[in-house]
């Protein structure tokens, strides 16, 4: 894909991004229903989307066996939810807009290139989407990539489970200084 195609895609996509956000608000289609009590901010759709993106965003770092990976992703999602709960309204709205775009069919397809449901999307599709948003000439997509990237990376590398692979032995003098 050359730069001109990218720009064209960008123009279509950012319009789609804005339109979706608006449509979602107008039609009440945005996924802001109270979740089941497990999370304060994340909706079940957010959970499916983030759980699909996490193994690609964090490829090579998460545990490889299916059961442990699932548990690690559950921990990441819980951490993200706790983090988002600290956000002020402006910051939270930006995340909500981002998640809404990623959650709804046509907007998701146009902006990410992932047309299938998140749970059915292939690793290659998701990797392509991340590259596309990271490298896009539309700054809104760069921002969206940064948001997903920071949330997932911070929520994973904050877990002691992630530390050995990062060569981090953990805090010093834990026996004396850790009191929790």
């Amino acid at each position: 894909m050359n730069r001109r195609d990218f720009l064209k895609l960008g123009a279509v996509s950012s319009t789609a991004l804005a339109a979706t956000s608006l449509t979602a608000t107008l039609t009440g289609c945005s996924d802001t229903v109270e979740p089941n009590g497990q999370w304060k901010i994340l909706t079940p759709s957010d959970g499916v989307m983030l759980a699909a993106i996490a193994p690609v965003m964090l490829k090579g770092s998460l545990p490889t066996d299916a059961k442990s990976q699932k548990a690690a992703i559950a921990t990441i999602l819980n951490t993200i939810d706790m983090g988002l709960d600290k956000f002020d309204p402006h910051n939270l709205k930006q995340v909500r807009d981002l998640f809404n775009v990623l959650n709804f069919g046509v907007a998701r397809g146009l902006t990410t290139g992932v047309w299938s449901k998140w749970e059915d999307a292939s690793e290659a599709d998701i990797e392509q989407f991340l590259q596309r948003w990271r490298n896009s000439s539309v700054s809104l997509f760069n921002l969206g990539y940064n948001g997903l990237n920071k949330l997932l990376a911070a929520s994973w590398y904050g877990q002691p489970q992630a530390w050995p692979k990062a060569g981090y032995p953990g805090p010093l003098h834990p026996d004396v200084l850790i009191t929790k």
Partner: protein
Amino acid sequence: MAIPDIFKQRAQAENWDITNAGTLAQHATIEADVIIIGTGAGGGVSAETLSQAGLKVVMIEEGGLFTSDNFNMDELQAYGDLYQEGAARASKDGAIAIFQGRAVGGTTVVNWTSSFRTPNSTLEHWSKHHAVKGASPAEMTPYFEQMEKRLNVEKWAMPPNANNDILKKGCEANDWSWAVIPRNVSGCWDLGYCGTGCPTNAKQSMLVTTVPEALKNGASLYYRCSADRIVFSEHKAEAVECLALGADGKTPTGVKLTFKAPHIVLSGGAINNPGLLMRSNAPDPHNRIGKRTTIHPVNATLAKMPETVNPFYGAPQSIYSDHFQWNTDGDIGFKLEVPPLQPTMGAQIVGFHGMQLTQTMEDLPNSQSTIALLRDGFHEDSQGGTIELVDGKPVLDYPITDYLWHGFRKAFHVMAELQFAAGAKSVYPLHHDATFYSNLKECKAAIDQLPYELHRQRIMTAHLMGGCTMGEDQRESVVDSQSRFHHADNLYVIDGSLFPTSIGANPQLSIYGLALKQSTQLAATIKQSK
């Protein structure tokens, strides 16, 4: 509990008056001689000074009360408990990450202890260009000296950790000036976890110094108590209406607390002070509230070193260079320092994903990061940002001008030169269109080619200044040189939001010194009027 939690022990032994507003069931009105909103560098020092003068002081803090028993060197816990918006505060457009404290003790609980006096050039600039009176280097010196003594500020006497030593080596190899950073610590264990709350009480933050002293002097502290609105009459601030916050530190419980005093001091910092004044419809005929918010915008490079660095251990900042700070040929000046890299901070600044992120993180023990802190607010093309309210909460709109982009590019060049000169195997300027480059020539060529655009380059700040700037000209400032609000006789602002420009150095000692001067004068004014 091997380390005594001195705050808890003294609170009990000295019967301090501390209230978690979130536990109150009834509305209440509280009266005092002085109300101080905020308990960070500005509020802490003011509380100590005013309580020492025999005045009944009430301190109001929106954040929680966390003390050394709560500080477990755990990034996620600390970011959630001790930082604004869980350490995810950002500028309005999302382009700048903002690290700012939110707890009893304010940002001093989580800062990296670097303690610089306000540079003379900065003080002289304020006098010359911003009509600030009484803050010349000679007039400020005694206050800096007193605060340095109070907070045990001394040049770090131990060897720098490897992370800082690389900064020193890089400067020496290039024949650039560098120096040792003075730190406000007493009995420091050289751990490296200043940013997650000092677990040994070595850091002389407001949490273990001035706030306890004020409490000992009979001051009261209300935490999880969010200042919602100042009630103004003709020329006076009559009261501060506060909302009690529940256990989540965020949701109002419905209980309202009204604080009344003849004198009210705002010490909530450069984002929250303007926010409170705007919510209160404070008089602002010249539209100055929330203007000139400066932030020392930061960019960074990441180097892979041949040796083990372990950038997560050891006093986080002990070496700096001002080689590019003042003689800049019209470009923006910057200070060079290093950040500590614990894994959460490390992972979220690199801007990679997938195997590239994993591999970069696998090299964490051999990684060194250098940061440039741009000295904003000194040039017509760098006027700082503006605070706005969104749903009643303050948000910083900060434009990155071409002048700043030029500064970032220059800083990338300098940091790459520094790291390669110190022996780096490869250097990565934190930017979407860059990667690790294995020699200086290639890296510099790439730096020149980078598109300098929002959201492609990592930009951060941990220094929030301005927004309630001081000066004698009412058309240009919010308060006068003695911190008195131009449009209400008994309302004062005492903290970093006073600064008409950025400092050109980590700001805590600048805040301490100025707060001591302003609060000492305020104490005298109040006693005279009694």
